Structures are given as structure tokens and as C-alpha cells.
């Protein structure tokens, strides 16, 4: 009996030993274990980075939902003790929220549309309608990409003042529509690379069927360029939304036409004054607004309010955006 068991164990050991001794299985196991390692490391790393990215936003949301009296309640770190929308209410008063939101949305949307049109046309011309000298013109695009707006802002300001467009939103539209908006150079570059990547046969067969150049562009190239359109549109919208530079130079944000970014910057630089003038102080007691932490809290919540519409919109376009990278390859 005993010898039987010993024999069995021995043969089992021999089998396993043989199995692992084979060069083929050795390789398979090596690969499998390295695969598992890779998976573990990847998961930890990506999860950690996602956490780092989401952390500030989650913190802001948690801040927004707690009662103003709880600012320095040490017991409250994540989940508010008393739920309240008071912080949001105060921030909305400070930012003049609904009007500013509407204006910002209008400005970003119109400027985005104009930018898409002007840069898509230019990008198409640079990639598919090449002529003598178009390379030299493209060098101009590269220069606009690397020149910082600061180098031009004074001259631009004086120029726009001479035409009498300072303080009007049209100045932003004019810049976007003529391909000189925020980072338009990069958009032209993206469109050029993208149109270049589309197969030449598309254009040739359209040409053989007698389509004009414009029709080829409009009916054949553009529908195929959805990926680039989504990418550029998203960036154009977001950068215009977040822009505080051109808006400040052209003095677009006024009493009559408040914009979120400028309202936020003005408020953050003098939170107490902002609360005082907009009547936000009347909503809470003195012991709360004398607390510097509370002022920081309102700045945070205001920043969240500015970002929130963007995040919500991103949730809707996100799928198309990610897919557009997948399908197209903007970089050609």
C-alpha cells in the first residue's frame, strides 16, 4: 500500500516535472506569467492615474454639497454632515451664473462653428488642393502655431481699437472666422493631416464622375472627416470656454455681457468684495464669512460651476470623441 502511494506520488512528480521540462510549455508559462504581471501593473497604474485625475473634481463636488457652517468641521472630509445647496447658491450669485453661462455658451458655440469652417477649408486646401507656393503659406501656419499670443496682443489690441471692435464679442468671432482664433494653427494642421490620410481614389472617382472640386469636398471628403470634425470641434469649444486671455484683451466680458471665466477670475481675486457687492453675504451669517476657509470654498465651488457644463457635455460627446481617435488617426 505504502509503496503504491509513494509510486503514485513519484510518477505524478515525474509527470509534472516532465511537463515543465518541455521547452514549449516553459515558453508558454513564461509568456502567461508575464502577461499576468503586465495586466496587474497596467490595472494599478491606470486606476491610480484615473484616481488622481478625478480626485479634485470629486473633492469639489463634496465641498459644494456641504453646509457653509461645516467648512472647518474636522469630522467632514468626504460626506457632508449637513447636506445643503447653500454654497452653490452663493456661488451662483457671485458669478451671475445663468446669464454668464448663456453668454459663454453662445460665444463658445459660434466661435467653434466659425473655427471649424475656416480651419477645415484651409486644411483641405493645404492637403488636397496644392499649388505652387502652398508650402510657403503652410510655413505661415507653423509660425502662427509657435508665436505666443502675448507677442501680438498689444498690437492686436491697438488694431482692434482703431476699428472700434474692443468690448464687442464680434472681435472674437472675426478672429475665429478668419482662422486666427485660439490655436487655429493646430486645427489647420490636424485637418491637413487628416484629409491627407483619406484615400486618393475617393477624389479621383468623384472627379471622373464629373463632380466639381467643391462637391467633392462637401459630399465626399467632409462626411468622411467626421472624426477630425468632432476632435477639432471639441477642442475649439473647450478652449474658447476656458479662454481668459483673448477675452481679457478684447474686453469682451462686460456688465452687459458677463462671461464665466472673467467672472470667476474677478471673484477669485477678491472673493470678499465679490460677495459683498453681489449680495452673497446676506445669505449667510458673519461668523461664516469671516472664515478665510469659507472664501476658498466659494472659489472652489465657483470653479466647479464653471466646469460642470463642460463635463456634462463631454459625457455626451465622449463616446464619439474616443471613437474618432480610433477610426481616423488624426496624425495621418
Amino acid at each position, binding site marked *: 500500500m505504502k509503496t503504491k502511494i509513494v509510486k503514485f506520488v513519484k510518477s505524478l512528480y515525474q509527470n509534472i516535472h516532465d511537463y515543465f521540462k518541455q521547452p514549449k510549455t516553459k515558453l508558454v508559462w513564461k509568456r502567461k506569467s508575464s502577461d499576468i504581471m503586465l495586466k496587474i501593473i497596467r490595472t494599478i497604474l491606470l486606476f491610480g492615474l484615473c484616481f488622481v*485625475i478625478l480626485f479634485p473634481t470629486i473633492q469639489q463636488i463634496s465641498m459644494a454639497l456641504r453646509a457653509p457652517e461645516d467648512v472647518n468641521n474636522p469630522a467632514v472630509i468626504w460626506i457632508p454632515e449637513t447636506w445643503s445647496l447653500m454654497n452653490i447658491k452663493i456661488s451662483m450669485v457671485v458669478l451671475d451664473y445663468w446669464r454668464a453661462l448663456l453668454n459663454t455658451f453662445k460665444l463658445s458655440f459660434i466661435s467653434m462653428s466659425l473655427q471649424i469652417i475656416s480651419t477645415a477649408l484651409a486644411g483641405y486646401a493645404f492637403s488636397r488642393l*496644392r499649388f505652387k507656393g502652398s508650402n510657403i503659406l503652410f510655413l505661415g501656419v507653423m509660425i502662427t502655431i509657435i508665436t505666443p499670443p502675448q507677442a501680438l496682443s498689444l498690437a492686436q489690441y491697438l488694431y482692434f481699437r482703431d476699428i472700434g471692435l474692443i468690448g464687442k464679442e464680434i472681435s472674437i468671432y472675426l*478672429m475665429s472666422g478668419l482662422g486666427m482664433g485660439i490655436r487655429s494653427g493646430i486645427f489647420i494642421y490636424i485637418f491637413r493631416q487628416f484629409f491627407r490620410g483619406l484615400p486618393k481614389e475617393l477624389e479621383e472617382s468623384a*472627379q471622373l464622375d464629373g463632380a466639381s472640386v467643391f462637391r467633392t469636398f462637401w459630399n465626399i471628403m467632409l462626411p468622411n472627416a467626421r472624426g477630425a470634425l468632432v476632435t477639432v470641434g471639441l477642442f475649439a469649444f473647450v478652449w474658447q470656454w476656458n479662454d481668459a486671455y483673448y477675452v481679457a484683451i478684447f474686453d469682451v466680458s462686460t456688465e452687459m455681457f458677463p462671461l464665466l471665466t472673467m467672472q470667476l477670475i474677478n471673484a477669485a481675486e477678491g472673493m470678499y468684495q465679490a460677495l459683498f457687492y453681489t449680495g452673497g453675504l446676506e445669505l449667510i451669517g458673519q461668523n461664516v464669512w469671516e472664515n478665510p476657509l469659507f472664501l476658498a470654498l466659494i472659489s472652489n465651488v465657483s470653479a466647479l460651476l464653471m466646469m460642470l457644463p463642460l463635463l456634462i457635455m463631454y459625457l455626451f460627446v465622449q463616446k464619439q*470623441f474616443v471613437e474618432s481617435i480610433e477610426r481616423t488617426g488624426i496624425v495621418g
Partner: protein
Amino acid sequence: MAELEQKTIRPHKGKSLTGYKRQKMIWAIIFLAPWIIGFLMFFMIPFIRSLYFSFYTLEPTPDGIISTYNGFQNYVYAFNQHVTSNSSFRVELINTTLDALINIPVLLIFSLFIAVMLNMKFKGRALVRAIFFIPVILNSAAVSTALGGGDAIAQLLEEQGIGQIFNLEFYLIQTGMMPWLISFIVGLIDRIYTILSLAGVPILLFLASIQTVPKHLYEAAKIEGATGYETFWLITLPNVSPHIITVTVFALVDTFLTSSVSRIISDELGNSNRWGESAAMAWIYVSTIILILLLLVVIAKVFKIGGSHYED
């Protein structure tokens, strides 16, 4: 080839190709017209004017701007005399340049690494990708001003010693680690968010360029039994390298745009007596970027980065 086909298909319209070419040319001009007008009006004119400003002292008066020529005075001022409350233009310029030279390779490697990972197949990939592009959306000057809460508030908080719940540095010192290691770790963690927010667009560009690598190369490699590591070095990297230049240019411009140098230039601009100096600073800034770019192009030429090895 296309020419030949054209002629054989429609022999009676021998001139149709040149006609098409002319049509193309006309449409090219129409398509480019907005951009050319914009380029001349809103770029070239301000560009030349600001170059002109940088050699003059400007004085705004009710009748207009009085400008007096002063040679390279503004440039000398920007380099030698300019000071802010705790720094100077020269110091910040040098710091930013060094920072850029150190940060950009890190940024490139990091974003390429992340792009390769986001390109792998795993569960929840779409969600992770969506999250990784959030910093691109949230990256805004207005928000960072607000989160700084204004300097006054930050100072108050510091005086009272509140606002920091978990002090990593203090904790690490207690574990008895070497000081340089601690400062490295703390600096790295402080920077993760900054790096992530700068890396958004580079990741996107890299991801897009990886997508364009022909799939059959990977299939062949797999059949031949290449490991993921080998595939990366021998297939992904050589194919992505033409786009490294694009990403570098973007990252370089982006780093300078968000740096303290550009803040100083804007601040000077706010002070109307210093317009000339501000223009000079802007030009120093532009030439620094161009110099770095030239340097990079030379390096790329020497090490043969950037040329696609399929083209020739």
C-alpha cells in the same frame, strides 16, 4: 497615371485635366481666402507692429501713442533691469527654458507610455480613455486662479496651518528616508496632476498615430513570436517617431504658454508705460522658442528621429 486614365476614358475632352487643375487652383484660393485675410490682417500686421514697438519707448496720450526710438534699450532692460516682487524676467526665462528641456522628454516618454497602454485591449478601456482626456477639458487659467483662491487666502491658510490634511513630506521625513529622495517623491506627486494635464493632447496625438500603424505588422510579429516588449521597440516606436516632432512642438509651445514668463509679459502689458519693454520681452520669448526648436530639429536630424523608414 491618373493623367493617362483620364485621357483614355474621355479622349474628346483632352483639356479636361488642365480644366480640372485650374478649377482646383481657383477653389484652393477660395478655401484659403479667409485664412489668408486673417493671416495678413490679424497676424502679420500685429506681428510687424510689435517688432517695431520693441525698439521704441511708447507713451500713450489722449491724442494717440507717442513713440520714440531707443534702439535695443528695451531688450537690455528686459534682460538686466527688470524685476518683480520675487523674481525677474531673466531668471524666469532661464528657469522655464531649463524646465522645458527637462520636462519635455519626461512628458514625451510618459505620454507615449500611457498611449501604448490605452491602446491595449482590456475591460473598461473606453471609460479609462474618457477619464484621461478630462484634464484637457479642465485645464484652464481661470480655474487655476480660483483654486489658488487668490494669494491672500492662500497666505492666510498657511499662517493658520490649516488646509493641509495630510502632509506627505512630514510623514516621509519621519520614516528616515534620504532628503533628496523625499523632495523628489514629493515633487513628483505634486507634479502628477500638472504632467497629466499637459499630457492630455500628447497622449491623444500619440494614440492617434499608433492607430495608423498598419495592423499586419503586429500580426506578423505575433506569428513570429515577438513579445510585447519587442513589438514596442521594433514596430510601435519607429512608426510613431515621425510624430514625435509634432508632439514636441506642441508640448514646447504649451509649456511656455503656461509658464511664468508669459505671465510676466502679460503683467507688463497691463502697465501702459512699459509697452515697449513688454514687446521686447515677447520677442525674446519667441526667439527662445525658435532657438529651442532649431536645436531639436538639428538633434532629430543627427539621430535620424522623425524620418519614416517606410518612405525611403
